[in-house]
């Protein structure tokens, strides 16, 4: 679910690469990690097996920069594709705001693609969501494979909701950024539409000085109609199909030429070898142990809140550790005296507990 923090002026959304095993999800994320500007990308973390297969998920935060005054971040995940990992796959989908479905164009992959997209819809349904309304795009990856399935065949089988599709050769980086941009555009549009729909109504409080709508009164603010669902998959999105758009200028993000040959050109060949090397470097193998291993040199003080000096106000605090009085009083005890005694006893108990525990 989108998290909008008006205090920190930050928006967080969750994006998941989904698809059958070996379709190139992890490779997509690795390419994003390698080619996104340093300031915008976070660490790529993988929980994977020794065989480089995704075990739980790969994760990377991507900062899109400040958009209309809000620092906008995508938390990007991949799921494990293997059929038997459905329980972990489902966990990663929790709270998803946008899906990039990475299909395998390989001649024998149709069944796996179909199974995976059905499984996606099923898992979404369990969270009360559906591809019908969830922003999503499809990437037909591995276009370089000999005998790759024709795009229109894949489209007929997989693109039930007529969403934007892209061709990719993730191994060389081709199509990775157009795909991500396509999805990002849908997600941002969706966020805006949704947010315009959530008008303040009598009783909804905004006790802060910062009134979001006062910055720019969104046209939808105050509307009583339900926001349009499914800003995402519409036919008009097809305009975004790479074939119909001019190729973006920067080389790494160039739209895929349909007959792209892997290793055809020197830069492409070089890029093709990068992902797995980078993966080894960046992967914490099946070991989410990073938190505990943080080196002292990396420790920093958060601005504005130094580690509090352990001295002041224990008395004030410990008073709140006494839920007992309320309960006793509720049972109709013999009046204020008893209540006062219980408060006192509970407070003393809490103070003792504090010192006993401190001494351990």
């Amino acid at each position: 679910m989108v998290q909008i923090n008006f205090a920190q002026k930050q928006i967080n959304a969750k994006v998941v690469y989904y698809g059958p095993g070996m379709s190139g999800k992890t490779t997509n994320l690795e390419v994003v990690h390698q080619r996104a500007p340093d300031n915008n990308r976070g660490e790529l973390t993988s929980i994977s097996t020794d065989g480089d297969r995704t075990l739980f998920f790969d994760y990377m935060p991507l900062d899109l920069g400040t958009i209309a005054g809000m620092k906008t971040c995508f938390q990007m995940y991949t799921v494990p594709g293997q059929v038997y990992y459905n329980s972990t796959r489902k966990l990663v989908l929790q709270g998803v705001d946008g899906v990039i479905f990475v299909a395998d164009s390989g001649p024998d992959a149709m069944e796996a693609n179909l199974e995976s997209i059905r499984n996606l819809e099923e898992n979404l349904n369990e969270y009360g969501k559906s591809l019908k309304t969830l922003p999503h795009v499809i990437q037909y990856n591995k276009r370089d494979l000999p005998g790759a399935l024709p795009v229109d065949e894949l489209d007929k089988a997989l693109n039930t909701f007529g969403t934007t599709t892209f061709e990719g050769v993730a191994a060389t980086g081709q199509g990775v950024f157009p795909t991500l941009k396509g999805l990002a555009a849908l997600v941002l549009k969706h966020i805006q539409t949704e947010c315009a729909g959530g008008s303040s109504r009598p009783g909804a409080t905004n006790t802060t000085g910062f009134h979001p709508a006062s910055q720019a009164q969104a046209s939808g603010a105050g509307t009583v109609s339900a926001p349009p669902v499914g800003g995402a998959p519409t036919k008009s999105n097809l305009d975004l199909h790479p074939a119909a758009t001019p190729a973006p200028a920067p080389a790494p993000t160039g739209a895929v030429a349909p007959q792209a040959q892997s290793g055809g050109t020197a830069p492409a060949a070089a890029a093709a070898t990068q992902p797995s090397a980078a993966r080894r470097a960046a992967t914490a193998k099946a070991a989410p142990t990073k938190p505990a291993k943080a080196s002292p040199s990396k420790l920093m003080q958060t601005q504005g809140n130094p580690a509090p000096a352990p001295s002041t106000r224990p008395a004030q605090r410990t008073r709140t550790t006494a839920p007992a009085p309320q309960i006793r009083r509720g049972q109709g005890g013999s009046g204020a005296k008893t209540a006062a005694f219980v408060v006192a006893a509970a407070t003393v108990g809490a103070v003792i507990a504090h010192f006993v525990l401190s001494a351990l």
Partner: protein
Amino acid sequence: MTTQDDARLREDRLVFYEADMEQLHTELDGFLELSKSRCAMLIDRDGHMVTRRGEAVESSSESISALIAGSFAATKEMARLLGEPEFAVMFHQGQRDSIQLQLVGERTLLAVVFDERTNLGLVRFYSQEATVRLGETFARIASEVRDSSLSDDFSSAGAAALDDLF
């Protein structure tokens, strides 16, 4: 707007205002002071960090949040298989730093990083009570329908930002 619409919108986004953050920070600061822990993070079960107080490993708190949410989700699944509703508290012991995770309300986790300056008993004692109050704050936040209108040009500005970025 119908109740159903309200419910759906609440399901689609979580909105925090300045006053919410102040309330959460006051609670966390008090907790850190009493428990002598290094750092306290509030993490949404979807993996987004809500906020953090105290010292921290600045460079990777987002990654830590994602991993914590993931491991908690996995543990919850374990609990389900064992017929437990969930394990409300989790503890990872390290050589120097340890982490305690505790469920706050329905969809938030309190992650506490602490070292030898304190101990698990003290951390657990104070996190229990902090959790109750934090839970009340989150319940209030979740129950309100909140104005979260963004600037009109949000998605077009976003598209431009993406073009610049990639």
